[in-house]
């Protein structure tokens, strides 16, 4: 028994003496609970919507006010034509549009029934569903209030149209997200490990003392993973289309080009991490902690970003996969072209340039 206890005591001392790991073990759960408690919620709030009110009568305005006032919705703009509605969706500015027909109130008064059209962006099917349900319940409440002193009940029917994903297939939402995750993981983690492994094995010493320029060492490390990633992308796309039934509505070439760009962004990040890490273990750990989880959470495919507290929304802007997710969704699911995604593309290009620049600048040409 004594031998057992002394062994336990020794193990405790090992943990206690490794302050850095201890810090992480104690603080990480705390940080995570706080962070994710606030950030992660399936509850939808502040979703951007637009209203196309063709009547502008008492009833439609009353409903509009209710909707705008609700904490679920954030009225971004009022539009004045169907064309505008389409354009606003394409720009990715809204998740749902509410359309009141002409003579809304008149129809209600004269025929006791009227219709409202709800168009939702179903590239994220869960959120679309939730939003239309919220809207419908607000409309029902209004309907109830009208019916209080009525003999014949009024009915306001909501006609729901799910854009891009009429069958509300879950896969539409997560395939782009998985792509972002997989590329980020493969490229970043594997590149950083490959570079650090060279350091750990000692061969980095030898190749530094050679005519080989450090810049070329870095690029040479990344190139194979570029090819592996392309294979990954093609595989995922094939599986999505033929097995999961997710179509590629937009241009395949644009999709591949953007994916390649994102791959390069991830590779640059991997190189940056490898500069600081001394062991493969550190590289892997850093990749996981600083990339995998944020990508999962802040890219927007699991939990809508607009539901998070503002500080976290700001943080999400630095996560490359957030922008990639938007690009992929726009091209693959919504069938949009470069005109719709050029801003996000530019952001990714900028991030890549910065990351590569810093990595090369900070690459250690000496051992210490």
């Amino acid at each position, binding site marked *: 028994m004594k031998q057992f206890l*002394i062994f336990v005591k020794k193990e405790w001392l*090992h943990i206690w*003496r490794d302050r850095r790991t201890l810090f992480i073990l104690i603080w990480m759960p705390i940080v995570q609970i706080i962070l994710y408690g606030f950030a992660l919620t399936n509850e939808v709030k502040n979703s951007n919507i637009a209203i196309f009110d063709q009547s502008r009568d008492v009833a439609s305005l009353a409903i509009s006010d209710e909707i705008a006032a609700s904490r679920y919705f954030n009225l971004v703009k009022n539009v004045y034509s169907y064309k505008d509605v389409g354009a606003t969706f394409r720009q990715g500015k809204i998740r749902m549009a509410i359309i009141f027909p002409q003579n809304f109130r008149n129809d209600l008064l004269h025929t006791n029934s009227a219709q409202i059209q709800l168009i939702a962006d179903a590239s994220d099917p869960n959120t679309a569903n939730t939003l239309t349900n919220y809207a419908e319940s607000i409309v029902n409440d209004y309907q109830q209030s009208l019916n209080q002193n009525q003999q014949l009940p009024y009915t306001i029917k909501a006609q729901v149209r799910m854009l891009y994903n009429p069958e509300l297939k879950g896969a539409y939402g997560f395939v782009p997200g998985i792509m972002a995750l997989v590329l980020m993981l493969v490229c970043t983690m594997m590149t950083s490990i490959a570079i650090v492994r060279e350091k750990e094995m000692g061969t980095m010493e030898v190749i530094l003392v050679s005519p080989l320029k450090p810049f070329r060492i870095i690029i040479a490390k990344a190139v194979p993973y570029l090819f592996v990633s392309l294979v990954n992308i093609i595989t995922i796309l094939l599986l999505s289309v033929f097995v999961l039934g997710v179509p590629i509505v937009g241009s395949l070439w644009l999709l591949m080009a953007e994916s390649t760009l994102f791959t390069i962004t991830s590779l640059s990040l991997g190189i940056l991490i490898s500069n600081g890490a001394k062991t493969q273990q550190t590289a892997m750990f850093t990749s996981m902690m600083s990339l995998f989880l944020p990508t999962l959470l802040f890219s927007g495919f699991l939990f809508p970003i607009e539901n998070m507290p503002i500080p976290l929304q700001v943080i999400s802007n630095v996560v490359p996969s957030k922008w990639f997710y938007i690009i992929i969704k726009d091209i693959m699911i919504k069938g949009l072209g470069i005109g719709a995604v050029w801003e996000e593309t530019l952001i990714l290009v900028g991030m890549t340039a910065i990351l590569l620049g810093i990595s090369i600048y900070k690459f250690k040409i000496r051992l210490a």
Partner: protein
Amino acid sequence: MAKEKVITAHELTKRFGDFIAVNKITFDVEKGEIFGFLGANGAGKTTAMRMLCGLLLPTSGQASVAGFDVFKQTEQIKKSIGYMSQKFSLYEDLTVAENIRFYGGIYGLSDARIKEKSSLLIKQLHLDGQEKTLVRALPLGWKQKLAFSIAIVHDPAIVFLDEPTGGVDPVARREFWGLIYEASARGITIFVTTHYMDEAEYCNRVSVMVDGRIDAMDSPANLMKDYSAGSMDEVFLQLARKAVRTGD
């Protein structure tokens, strides 16, 4: 006056499939002897030593260590021996005192005995004031001496040293061998493997393994005479050159 034999081995063999790592070695070691177990990498030294320590079951042959059979009484063997190797010795992130206490506890010493041994050891190694120093901060020579002392903290009958001296400075290396001499004088038998042929000359007797067999065994002085060599280094080179195996 026959001295007590603490290790006996008769045609001890270990096979891994078709490969015969240790091929019918026969030898014995007397109590208090410093016995050098030499051989090139791949000759079978480490395998043989593992069998004697009770860590590996032999394929055939017989052997006993401290009176216990290597086939049937491995647990008793482990309790009666000490072990130190170059690759591992002490826990770097524990202090000197903690290492002593830990190993003392593992070897089953009572608290009183651990305390007693601890102060003795610290004084002997001139580590007064360093009890709370992390082993990591000690110079290599001190680490080695401490590791050896801890390996015999429970006064075992035999201590096995697997390549114990690394690239320490020549003075530290000799101080280390001073400790070995002192332990031997106390009656502890020392079984040591080493790459340094001049250290082979410290031993009472040495054996040289080549390709799994023991090709020579005698005192260094006799071996040097037999092989007309000026040093153990030359003896070893003559024997090792005949080797067929060059594995790692």
